[in-house]
């Protein structure tokens, strides 16, 4: 299931936040060898200071964190605007209150190995993608934009995630890098559900006192 955590609520979710940054260090630094900063075992960057919305996959049996991704509004600091703007033509700047950016998709490697397949992708992958699109649809967003690599491109294909490449993919360091957009609507949700076998919402029902209780019925 997917737990939604806003950056401003990180203190109330210290466990999930710690696990998320630790998993990100393992995945992006140790395994993928990306040029990321790891501090005290955490991979954390300037965009984490911007009050992102974290989409967190939770093991329903143990309440442990299995993986996460991060959403940022494109009206503020985001990776496409501030790091990867060369991917887009000079006269195209994505900044729209109804388009958010997804980044830092990662899964705990142990969970990823053990995870059962959901169609062509792991249960955790499908759940994270669905979580991001579902919350986008719930609050009336139009699209998610994301910067991704060949590894993610394969996952998108397998998950039947109809992402449109924007601009021209190029190499950053050793990594072939793409920008893409996907609609946050019921069609996308249905396609993802079809590909993964999910039939209902992946979003966890928050406790009544949780500020997100208002959003997830």
């Amino acid at each position, binding site marked *: 299931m997917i737990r*939604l955590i*806003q*950056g*401003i609520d990180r203190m109330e979710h210290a466990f999930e936040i710690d696990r998320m940054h630790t998993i990100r260090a393992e995945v992006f630094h140790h395994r993928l060898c990306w040029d990321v900063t790891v501090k005290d075992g955490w991979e954390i960057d300037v965009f984490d200071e911007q*009050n*992102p*919305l974290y989409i967190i996959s939770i093991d329903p049996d143990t309440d442990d964190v299995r993986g996460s991704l991060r959403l940022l*509004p494109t*009206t*503020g600091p985001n990776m496409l605007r501030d790091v990867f703007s060369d991917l*887009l*033509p000079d*006269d*195209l*700047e*994505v*900044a*729209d*209150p*109804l*388009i958010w950016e997804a980044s830092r998709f990662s899964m705990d490697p142990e969970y990823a190995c053990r995870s059962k397949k959901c169609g062509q992708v792991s249960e955790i992958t499908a759940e994270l993608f669905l979580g991001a699109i579902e919350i986008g649809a*719930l*609050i*009336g*967003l*139009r*699209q998610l*934009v994301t910067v991704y690599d060949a590894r993610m491109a394969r996952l998108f294909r397998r998950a039947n995630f109809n*992402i*449109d*490449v*924007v*601009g021209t993919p190029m190499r950053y360091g050793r990594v072939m890098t793409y920008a*893409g*957009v996907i609609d946050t609507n019921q069609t996308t949700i249905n396609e993802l559900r079809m590909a993964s076998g999910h039939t209902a919402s992946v979003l966890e029902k928050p406790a*009544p*006192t*949780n*500020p*997100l*209780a*208002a*959003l997830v*019925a």
Partner: protein
Amino acid sequence: MRDVRFSSIIEKLQAVSKKGDGRDLLDRVVEEYGLSNAVYYARKIPELTPKEHFFALTYQDDWVRHYQDQDFFSIDPVLKAGAQSLLPVDWDVLDRRAPKIQQMFGEAQDFDVGHKGLTFPIRGVNGETALLSITSDFSDREWSQTKSIYIRDFQVIANFIHEMIIRTEGGGRLCPKLSPREIECLRWASEGKTYEDIAVLIGIRTGTVKTYMEMSRRKLNALNTTHTVARAISFKLIDPPG
């Protein structure tokens, strides 16, 4: 699906051109959606609020005076949530334990503020922050049934209201600036070409066409492609087809 009141509100928001008219329009929003009140509040918009806060609201004047006299500004959890949160906030989950906050929500009822509320944070494209709150007197049951519709529609309406306020309260009517490629895509779209057609015609990816069109939609405050084209024609950015 969104219903006719949604598009009718958006249309009216775009038609507002005179300073001050925006406030009347909030009354219409409230009426169309069966709400008690609506409040737009901006804290950090240089062209709008050089010295003080800017707000447009439908509350009774007595409540506004009382709110100011009591300096509820400094403790109102709605303002705090609107400034910090990324997602809409239901007033039911606000922490009301502090005595002054309890006092505020208690007294609000004497002025028919409405006891249910939702606040939509607004993050403008130039980094400005504002919020829109809507209130109602629904029962718990009615509220839980209708809230999701409000959340979906008002995230969009909040941004349109923000644009309308900046346009009418800030200086003059500016024609949105579109890039040559954005205009080119719009011109083809006005002739009925699909995104795939346009991609082939001008030799860029479909996703890039789609994104140019999304940015034109945002700049022209439109709801979809057809609407974007219509707005571009009315601004004389492109010629009518034919």
